[in-house]
């Protein structure tokens, strides 16, 4: 045995292995680059193919949720002791920017496929039958809280004004510039009410005075506060958050 034998391999000996490693590293970095470029910044605003696919899936989920929806499925109701105190305020602005209107001069404007489009006053709404519900409000952010609302069942009001109940959408405009829309089936759900009161008193400004639509079958973003106008239409009116990419149906 030659004790001076060179143990270090020559470049030619290791070259095939180096090439293999190099290829592997190239492939790996290409893969992770591809994966990264696919995953970052997909915010439904770029209009790229991933966002398009997500939009298609969101519309598909609208249809699935509409198919799952039933007027016979009622949201759980709770005893007064379960009410969340204080019930949280939430809007697209802070509490300091809450807008108010004079309740006496406030009128609910009606438009679209409605037989009698005369505006309604608060006093007129209070003459209609009222329903009280203690139900869970679920925010799209994941938190939830139990509140105590009462007001006019929306189906009663829609029939009273001669709304076309075969129309597809009900749109809402609010005097805080918020807007949203719901499907007719949800509008006619027995727990969908035009809330005028919270607890034993008229809705406070933080909860949408003087009129809020309360639906335990929809996420919070679909429960418009500070309602100024209602329209019945076959063209989807969209919504403040929905137009930014949140799922339109947003049912629960």
């Amino acid at each position, binding site marked *: 045995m030659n004790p001076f034998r060179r143990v270090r391999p020559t470049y030619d000996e290791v070259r095939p292995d180096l090439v293999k490693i190099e290829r592997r590293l190239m492939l790996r970095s290409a893969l992770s680059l591809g994966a990264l470029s696919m995953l970052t910044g997909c915010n439904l605003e770029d209009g790229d193919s991933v966002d398009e696919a997500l939009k298609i899936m969101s519309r598909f989920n609208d249809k699935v949720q509409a198919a799952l929806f039933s007027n016979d499925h*009622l949201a759980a109701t709770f005893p007064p002791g379960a009410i969340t105190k204080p019930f949280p305020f939430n809007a697209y602005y802070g509490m300091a920017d809450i807008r108010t209107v004079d309740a006496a001069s406030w009128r609910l404007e009606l438009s679209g496929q409605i037989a009698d489009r005369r505006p309604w006053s608060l006093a007129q709404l209070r003459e209609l039958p009222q329903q009280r519900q203690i139900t869970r409000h679920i925010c799209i952010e994941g938190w939830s809280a139990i509140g105590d609302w009462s007001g006019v069942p929306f189906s009663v009001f829609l029939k009273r004004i001669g709304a076309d109940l075969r129309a597809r959408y009900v749109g809402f405009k609010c005097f805080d510039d918020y807007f949203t829309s719901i499907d007719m089936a949800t509008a006619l759900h027995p727990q969908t009410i035009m809330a005028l009161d919270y607890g034993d008193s008229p809705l406070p400004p933080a909860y949408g005075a003087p009129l809020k639509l309360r639906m335990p079958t929809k996420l919070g973003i679909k429960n418009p506060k500070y309602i100024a106008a209602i329209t019945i239409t076959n063209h989807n009116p969209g919504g403040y958050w929905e137009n930014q990419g949140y*799922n339109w149906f947003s049912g629960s």
Partner: protein
Amino acid sequence: MNQMHRKPGRAPRAHPAIVRLTHWISAAAMVCMIMSGWRIYNASPILPFTFPEWATIGGWLGGALNWHFAAMWALAAAGAIYLVYGFGSGHFRRDIRPVGPRAILRDIVAALTLRLAHREGHYNAVQRLLYSGVLVVIVLTVITGLSIWKPVQLGFLSWIFGGYAVARVIHFTMMVLIVCFIVVHLALVALVPSTLRSMITGGRVAEPIDRETAS
């Protein structure tokens, strides 16, 4: 398995094509669901921490929700196909069903001391425990997920889990268990890299240990 009818050198696939396909679709869907789920969690954390932004997908809450509810269908479809196959073909009974606690303990000790032999197509006691466990956890994650997605229309599900708020915590806890599984799973794959190849190509079932020559 009838050894007589096998061509020499052509052992059956360790992982049938349907298992490999559903495995990789579920893996991709699960990664999307976990990373988008972390961003959804961040919008309203239930623990005093949030997940780092780089570990999430969707870019913002609306985007994360869209990812979550799109990947959901891929996971549900692949999961349903795998469950039907697993029960129908005997794959669960034959390969995944956990064996006794003694075998589990023995294989855990062997795994920790790096003496656990891996034979392709044969699931050891640790694998059986992990795989059957994570399958139950994934099914629970899907059901709690449905219960917080549709707490009114699927109200009986939320009721079973103790209401919306509790179901949400269970859903989160199941995610933690799945992430723990993935860490262990990837560590074991790193120890025996050939398993990665056979989960892609299918591999070949190793011969059963011949008791007479082995002892």
